[in-house]
């Protein structure tokens, strides 16, 4: 709760500081604010918490704290990695950064909610700043299109969600997660009213994590948005969307497992195949990332499907590795700053800039689940805990990993191979901030799998 307030205040302060027209000040404020928030979050890990404000609508469990730290960390990395983009238009820097911070506030709400109000509020606070940010590249037609598309589809899914919440309330008479759970488990609420409500909430959540068949917005939106915003959507929004999904469906609606698991099973299979098969043959980098992120949504949803005790921890590990890969790749694309975002402009950059090449190798092979990168361990944990109950699903997921390695590999080969004319390959000069981001990502990807808890 206190971290949430700190992030919110930082966002406010950033807007005022932006009046000085000195982007660096905004950055410094945001960095300090986020670091304090991360520190406060970590301090709550200890028992009893060193310092804590509390509010009944929000509760940070242990796993919630882990997810919050990750969300704040990714926001932090995106802000400092994307600073070279934010500072381009001096008069807007403050707005961009504070919008991202406000969105992070929503992310924290969505992690810690204990009732449907906070869930809905969190979702909206998370999404609305991003609708704006997606369109922040005003002169670019694609950006405007993406913003509109995201807004319309997002608004529609919010409507479905609200409708679903209303049905669930109608059935159970409660907005509290505990209350809903109690009336489901004592059997008073069961009926078609509840079932329809749950399925509607599921549809809206699947939209947020861009799972098929609710994924059509994501390639266009990812491609149209500024790189930093794409990174934020892929890393943070997906992370909290997944956690909220997990929380609602394994805890609150866990007893209704028989209702939704069949539907989710089919959608996971669909999501994996749609994501991976569409990713083959993409020629734009961010579209490739979008389709790969659809596929990864499918893999991560297996953690929710498995209904094992440790699945929240497995999901955290999965999103950890996924987020670091995305942040690293997006930072590189910010450094490259190619308007067209074509695959071909990445040719040879890894060979000419060995450090960048190393990061590309790490993050793509982590996405492809090649050990010793963290992505492998995330996948292994999610899949192996689901193997007992759903072996066929896991086998299908493994087959999909095999498909996935193909397009990651084509990109790695393009980025790392020697070009005939080396002088055409740009020599990249990341700023110090971007170096910091890349190094943190590399450390995260290399050590992420070996946490001993």
């Amino acid at each position, binding site marked *: 709760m206190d971290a949430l307030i700190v992030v919110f205040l930082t966002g406010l302060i950033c807007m005022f500081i932006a009046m000085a027209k000195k982007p660096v000040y905004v950055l410094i404020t945001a960095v300090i604010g986020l670091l304090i928030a991360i520190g406060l979050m970590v301090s709550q890990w200890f028992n009893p918490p060193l310092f804590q404000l509390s509010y009944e609508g929000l509760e940070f469990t242990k796993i919630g704290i882990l997810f919050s730290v990750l969300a704040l960390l990714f926001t932090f990395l995106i802000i400092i990695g994307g600073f070279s983009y934010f500072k381009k238009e001096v008069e807007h820097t403050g707005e961009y950064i504070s919008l991202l911070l406000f969105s992070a506030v929503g992310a924290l709400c969505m992690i810690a909610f204990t009732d449907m109000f906070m869930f809905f509020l969190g979702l909206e606070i998370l999404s609305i700043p991003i609708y704006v940010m997606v369109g922040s590249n005003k002169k670019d037609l694609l950006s405007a299109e993406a913003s509109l598309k995201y807004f319309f589809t997002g608004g529609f899914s919010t409507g479905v969600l609200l409708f679903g919440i209303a049905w669930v309330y109608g059935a159970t008479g409660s907005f509290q997660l505990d209350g809903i759970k109690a009336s489901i488990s004592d059997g008073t609420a069961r009926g078609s009213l509840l079932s329809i409500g749950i399925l509607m909430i599921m549809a809206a959540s699947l939209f947020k994590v861009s799972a098929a068949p609710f994924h059509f917005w994501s390639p266009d939106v990812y491609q149209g948005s500024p790189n930093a915003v794409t990174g934020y959507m892929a890393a943070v929004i997906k992370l909290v969307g997944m956690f909220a999904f997990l929380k609602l469906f394994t805890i609150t609606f866990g007893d209704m497992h028989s209702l939704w698991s069949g539907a989710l099973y089919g959608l996971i299979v669909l999501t994996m195949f749609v994501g991976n098969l569409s990713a083959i043959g993409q020629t734009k980098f961010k579209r490739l990332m979008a389709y790969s992120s659809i596929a990864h949504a499918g893999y991560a949803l297996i953690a929710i499907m498995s209904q094992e005790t*440790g699945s929240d*921890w497995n999901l955290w590990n999965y999103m950890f590795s996924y987020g670091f890969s995305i942040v690293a790749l997006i930072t590189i694309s910010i450094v490259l700053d190619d308007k067209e975002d074509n695959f071909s402009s990445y040719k040879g950059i890894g*060979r000419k800039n060995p450090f960048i090449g190393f990061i590309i*190798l790490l993050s793509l*092979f982590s996405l*492809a689940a*090649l*050990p*010793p990168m963290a992505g*492998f*361990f995330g996948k*292994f*944990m999610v*899949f*192996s*805990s689901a*193997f*007992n109950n759903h*072996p066929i699903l*896991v*086998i299908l997921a*493994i087959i999909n*990993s*095999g498909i996935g*390695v*193909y397009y990651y*590999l*084509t990109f790695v*080969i393009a980025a*790392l*191979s*020697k070009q005939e004319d080396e002088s055409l390959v740009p020599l990249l000069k990341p700023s110090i901030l971007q170096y910091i981001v890349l190094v943190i990502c590399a450390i995260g990807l290399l050590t992420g*799998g*070996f*946490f*001993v*808890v």
Partner: protein
Amino acid sequence: MELLLAPLFFALLLAVVPKKFVRLAGIVGTLVILGITIGHVITFSPNNVVSVFNPNATTKFGLTFKMGYDGIGLFMVILTNALFPVILLSNFNRSIAHEKSFNAMVLIMQFAMTGLFLAMDGILFYVFWEMTLIPIFLILLWFGAPERKTILTKFFVYTFVGSLGMLLSLMALSGLTKDFSYESLLAIKLVPKSAFWIMSGFFLAFAIKIPVFPFHTWQPDTYTVAPVAGTMLLSALMLNMALFGMVKWMIPIAPEALNEMKFLIISLGIIGVVYAGVIAIKQQDIKRIFAYASISHVGLITAGILLFNTEALSAVFLQIANHSLVAIGLFLAAGILENRLNTRDINAMGGIAKIAPKFAFWFAVTAFASMAVPFTSGFVGEFLILKNLFSYHWVVGLIAGSTLVFGAIYTLRAYQLSMYGAPKISSFEDLKWNELAAFFLLSVGIVILGIYPQIVLDFVGPSLVKISKIR
């Protein structure tokens, strides 16, 4: 632990070595590692299991970080670490040796392979198994022939998908055990049906890497486009990981399925012997001849492993060593020919023996070892495996025995067409000192193993007795 970390240390050290000394640093690094390994070998007594790293920590999903070696593990480590300097030495005069990235990748590969042989944990084994793919991929990508990209993709995706089979088996095991340490995995009792699937998963990974008959289609292409050093690494060293994995991991984890799989895998191995042998006879490209020869040889080794008795397994390890030495020698010869003539077509060669007698002699030594002539390392191992295959079933032994005939035909044909006959080329530079040294070292190994194979058999014997009791 220094056994594992030394290669990584030298790989990182290369970043600060000036470009002039890179190739020297590479060799010195591998020699130092060899020295460390010899230190371990001297203090090792074959009956022991030595623990190298045992942190007593377990991750949430059961990774224990345990590392150690028994006789076979240490044998593979010393074989690998002894061959790395030879590979670097044989490439010493090529431009590739001056590349920092090449030397670094070779050392990282050595790191991963050492880790693989030392791993006493299923996940750790998988981690190192996949880690070897990255350096070989980069070596092939950076230094391979121009037409490499499609072939490289095929190679990578093929081996990666194979490994996913092993991953699936590990996932299936995860529900049955509290952690993945070697002891826990051995303690699992499986019903034959699930043992069959688990073994199949492992076999898919190993069969593709070896490669065993129907999974070999990536191999000739990849060997051909790879730089000479890459081919040596692939054929002499990486394939050993799979053979070792079959002995140490695949069969002991799921021994319940051994009887069911025995016939299947032995058949595939034997088919590979004949099939690859016949194809090798018809090839014109010298690298492809040796690539198919390699498939033929390892088919026999695979069949030997599945017999899973102590004698056959000791012969298998002898044959692994032999195959590594011979593969390096043959691909070195092929590399020399390709390098100096700019062609791999054996019809375009001829009469080289007259111009380059030293090369002809040392090439002949390797070729004879490849044919399993007595007093070379190939003889004892091949003989013992064939003998055991005969006692398994005489038909199997008879078909497998054809390897001796085929081996003689394709090796002698390749040697004769390239070395003798009417001279078709005017000039051919004879062996450089480093190539001569590499051939010499390999031949010493070949002859020692041929005359005194007991040195290997004693080393791996006690561990194999223990392992073959598992079923």
